[in-house]
């Protein structure tokens, strides 16, 4: 989705970079706050973005987050190079997880990531190719 005159910003996310994990979503949150988006909407976007960012950090080699802001909605496109998701339907189930011990030590890998993104978005589309990567499209309407 692209729209004339929309605000756009790209961010890089590195796999295994637990030190910086959450920095991109925090920055996205600050941008939305600065342009005056309502607090409840900012919170939904931030939570969805954070879960998507953590997925890249935990599972992929690297990824990008593209933020697009239009008068009607916030659009996030999270693309990664990684193992991909073999069974998206299964991954969407609460509690299903393929997380490692290290990810669990960080407080993640409870199988709530994708369900949390769905809960906090108005539209969620996931495309994934096993062995190649995953593309997660998130829309939150104002």
């Amino acid at each position: 989705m692209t729209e004339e005159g929309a605000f756009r910003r790209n961010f890089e996310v590195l796999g295994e970079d637990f030190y910086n994990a959450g920095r991109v979503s925090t920055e996205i949150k600050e941008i939305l706050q600065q342009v005056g988006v309502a607090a409840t909407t900012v919170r939904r976007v931030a939570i969805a973005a954070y879960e998507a960012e953590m997925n890249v950090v935990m599972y992929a080699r690297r990824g990008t987050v593209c933020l697009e802001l239009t008068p009607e909605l916030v659009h996030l496109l999270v693309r990664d190079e990684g193992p991909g998701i073999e069974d998206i339907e299964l991954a969407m189930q609460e509690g299903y997880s393929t997380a490692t011990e290290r990810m669990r030590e960080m407080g993640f890998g409870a199988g709530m990531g994708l369900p949390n993104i769905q809960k906090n978005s108005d539209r969620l589309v996931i495309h994934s190719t096993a062995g190649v990567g995953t593309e997660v499209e998130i829309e939150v309407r104002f």
Partner: protein
Amino acid sequence: MKLEEVKRILECEVITGHDRLDTEIKMVCGCDLMSDVLAFIKADALLLTGLVNRQAIRTAGVADVPAVVFVRGKRPDEETVALAEEKGLPILVTNLLLYEACGRLYSQGVPGCEGR
């Protein structure tokens, strides 16, 4: 309830945010899993957790959590404290276990995040 009152009830040590103890706490969420925190915590709820790392601070920032109390006497490392200071997030530490800490606040009338 003010954070100052939480500090007294849970016998906390204040690590960061000494100047923010007048922060108003409307409810509490006790949880060690950050994904569960993101799923269930409400904005303006205090987080009680045993997960002492940067992700706890990041999660608090993302989910509009005004302060974090680390339970079981767990102390954050310098980097985690530095991140909390950068974000202006008050961090407190209590020696109480999670259940006891939640129970004390609940018995003083601070509700949980259930169905709100």
